[in-house]
């Protein structure tokens, strides 16, 4: 019995030293040994082969529904005036006061039914549908048996992901996070100095690099010359907590967020020891002025790192960018927009917080093939004269959406959990009313308005 334990222990030590030697140390120095590249290449080839097989299988069995990521319907994009105007053209007109026709209801009816079949908002809160299967059961909408070979490859994939990659990734994550906590605590003991800042940056970056390896993350950075500078605010679209790891792999940021308990709390407290981050108590978050003041103070100090903020306020599924909350755009300072686009073929990065809690989400991440994403640093933007915070926020949002190839929506990400505001319905009603009584306004010109 003793012998068995000793052997297990030796094996564990060997395993650990391999991991440290081949993955952790190169990661810390930002050196790539090329394992991930080879892995991704093999993966791409395998997935291409799988796609071809599925397509062949579909041709042979025509009842297999084709997996198309296109919409279900084709919509008309006319405005209310155009559409109702068209409806009324064929109706006998009566000019005497009020321009209402029974067929006006057709417009609202058709729009309503179109939205029941397919709408722009609810689909953003669930994972994106893939055009072709990527050998993960979780993304498969119509799992049908296609061929023996495909099933074998799938089974092999399951084994590789759960028995080889998962333990490896968990080890790396544990090493990375413990290094963060220990490293920042040690650095925190030093007196304030340039050396301290440099060491703090080093600890943070190396930890995030280890974590990125822990997810087999391949990140392509574009336009590095636009990287956020100190005293600025970095703004990005939000898909998952992993966004932070992706961003922090290439620069150091001051994080903004709520104070948590448990493990997160431990990490937060130790991070703050080595360099200033902005953690808010839950009660403080309600007071917008206090929040704005703290952020303003932070960016006023040019020695502090740029703040990282996700103005959407919630995770969206990376097919669109939703409304940016204006709070971060009222503080002043230079905004450095960043667009992040994940490649869904290798793993779905979206955190559906209604469906998965943090732990099951991380497990899903660690059992995906890899995380492949593109990150674009956009040129810095500042608020122009005559532009209010909302317009500025929309301008930044459009720039990010355009760069990342995402749909630019004005809907609030908060609709994930809350109902839409009545004022939007009132806007629609107002628009329609002006179509009905437009004529009346001219005729009733004598009375007081």
């Amino acid at each position, binding site marked *: 019995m003793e012998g068995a334990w000793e052997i297990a222990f030796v094996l564990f030590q060997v395993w650990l030293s391999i991991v440290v030697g081949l993955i952790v140390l190169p990661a810390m120095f930002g050196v790539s040994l090329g394992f991930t590249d080879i892995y991704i290449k093999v993966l791409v080839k395998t997935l291409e082969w799988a796609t071809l097989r599925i397509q062949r299988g579909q041709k042979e069995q025509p009842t297999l529904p084709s997996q198309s990521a296109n*919409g*279900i319907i084709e919509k008309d994009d006319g405005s209310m005036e155009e559409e109702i105007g068209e409806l009324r053209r064929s109706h006998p007109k009566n000019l005497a006061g009020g321009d209402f026709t029974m*067929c006006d209801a057709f417009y*609202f009816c058709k729009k309503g039914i179109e939205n*029941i079949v397919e709408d722009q908002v609810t689909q953003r809160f669930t994972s994106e549908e893939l055009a072709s299967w990527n050998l993960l059961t979780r993304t498969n909408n119509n799992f049908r048996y296609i061929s023996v070979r495909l099933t074998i490859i799938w089974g092999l994939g399951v084994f590789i992901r759960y028995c080889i990659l998962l333990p490896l990734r968990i080890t790396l994550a544990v090493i990375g996070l413990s290094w963060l906590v220990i490293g920042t605590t040690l650095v925190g003991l030093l007196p304030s100095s340039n050396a301290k800042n440099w060491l703090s940056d080093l600890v943070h970056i190396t930890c995030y690099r280890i974590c990125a390896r822990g997810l087999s993350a391949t990140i392509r950075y574009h336009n590095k010359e636009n990287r956020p500078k100190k005293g600025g605010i970095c703004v990005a679209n939000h898909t998952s907590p992993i966004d932070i790891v992706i961003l922090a792999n290439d620069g150091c940021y001051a994080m903004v967020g709520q104070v948590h308990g448990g493990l997160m709390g431990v990490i937060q407290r130790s991070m703050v020891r080595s360099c200033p981050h902005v953690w808010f108590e839950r009660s403080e978050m309600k007071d917008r002025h206090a929040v704005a003041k703290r952020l303003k103070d932070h960016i006023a100090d040019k020695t502090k790192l740029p703040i990282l903020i996700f103005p959407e306020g919630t995770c969206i599924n990376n097919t669109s960018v939703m409304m940016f909350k204006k709070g971060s755009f009222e503080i002043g300072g230079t905004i450095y927009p960043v667009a992040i686009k994940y490649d869904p073929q290798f793993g779905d990065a979206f955190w559906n917080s209604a469906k998965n809690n943090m732990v099951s989400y991380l497990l899903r991440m660690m059992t995906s093939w890899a995380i492949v994403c593109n990150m674009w640093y956009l040129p810095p933007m500042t608020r122009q004269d005559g532009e209010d915070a909302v317009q500025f926020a929309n301008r930044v949002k459009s720039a990010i959406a355009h760069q990342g190839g995402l749909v630019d929506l004005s809907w609030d990400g908060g609709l994930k959990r809350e109902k839409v505001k009545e004022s939007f319905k*009132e806007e629609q009603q107002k628009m329609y009313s002006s179509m009905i009584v437009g004529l009346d306004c001219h005729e009733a010109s004598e009375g007081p308005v």
Partner: protein
Amino acid sequence: MGSRASSLLREEDIEEIKKQTGFSHSQITRLYSRFHSLDKGENGALSREDFQRIPELAINPLGDRIINAFFPEGEDQVNFRGFMRTLAHFRPVEDNEKNKDPTSGEPLNSRTNKLFFAFRLYDLDRDDKISRDELLQVLRMMVGVNISDEQLGSIADRTIQEADTNGDMCISFSEFTKVLEKVDVEQKMSIRFLH
């Protein structure tokens, strides 16, 4: 996400719905995915709250009336069959459907049935007549607070006057059809479903 949703829909059901509504096989499976994603309670039926969760529908002035059209009299749940039956009204009219089985009656997406769907939006108590009150109620939903009661009343009166041919101060379905005979109902009450 619709993961494995289509496996809950049996082939026999799909064939039945195909015959009844005229949707294609792939359209039915795609709409089933949509039905499933709206069904937050996962009990195979949609409630009014499930529809209200669609923001663009919630801000539609006639949103509640449209949602109501899905639910049979006095019921609070609609299953997939009922969902598809209602949506079938909005399929475009195709000429090659004329060779349907003559005993199955008029297809759900005929011009008459489309008009009847719209008629039902106004006819709140389903007594096959649109009364002045019912018309006023629907008008009020569409204009909100922006038009006064008197003005709205005169609009309603004028509309009934134009349409009413038998003098009962209500609009029957045939009067409704007559007033709208020149409107391109086939196009305006149809949705272009892909594949």
